[in-house]
């Protein structure tokens, strides 16, 4: 005897049409949950580097002075 689609059972015990009805209901519930999340929480924020990141690191140390002296040895040394 041929079973109707609604009553046919597969290995999981759920009919084909019943399966899609169940899935459809679940999807609608998930969509409603996503829609309820406020959009403001995912808004992109521009990168604002702090003063510690942008502070000056260059110092005219003896090492740096030696570089200037050796590169300008022909001209800067009088």
């Amino acid at each position, binding site marked *: 005897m041929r079973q109707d689609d609604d009553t046919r059972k597969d290995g999981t015990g759920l009919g084909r049409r019943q399966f899609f009805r169940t899935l459809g209901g679940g999807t609608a519930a998930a969509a409603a949950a996503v829609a309820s999340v406020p959009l403001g929480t995912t808004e*992109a924020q*521009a*990168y604002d*580097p702090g003063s510690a*990141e*942008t*502070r*000056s*690191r*260059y*110092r*005219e*140390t003896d*090492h*740096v002075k030696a*570089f*200037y002296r*050796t*590169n*300008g040895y*022909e*001209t*800067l040394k009088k």
Partner: protein
Amino acid sequence: MARMKFLCDADRCIECNACVTACKNEHEVPWGINRRRVITLNDGKPGERSVSMACMHCTDAPCAAVCPVNCFYTTADAVVLHSKDLCIGCGYCFYACPFGAPQYPRVGNFGSRGKMDKCTYCSGGPEVDLSVAEYEKYGSNRLAEGKLPLCAEMCSTKSLLAGDGEMIAQIYKERVIKRGYGSGAWGWKTAYRETIAI
């Protein structure tokens, strides 16, 4: 406030590529990336000229202007740096940069390229100075150590200058005053005769 600049004295560059090698070694730059390159024009012909190129740390940097996630920032030393945590690997900066400075570790589209990498003027990144995290992402931070970029410091012919813009401009100006501008002052015409036009 000192503004950090690179200046390559093309009359002195001999295309030894030591600056390229030094940079890769100092920062353990990944395969496929060169933060600095030597460009040679008229290769093998009279008038050949080489120039060492890297990020020029532009005042109004086009890479920063096109970045969709604003990952670039300019330090008080006028060095243009970026955050690899924010970079999405879109490649816009690569197309915007007139010097080809931004590089990617892999070939691909958008995120599959990996994080952009470029010259940091040996001054690290947004992480804590001289930290392991900073070294792994951006390489060494020589500026914080009181030094200058290694590429310039180890240039054998003193072609590549780095440091305070005012100071290196003064060095270059006085070189030009003393020797003249152009390769003629360095024996070029002796080697290739007076008839060579540069």
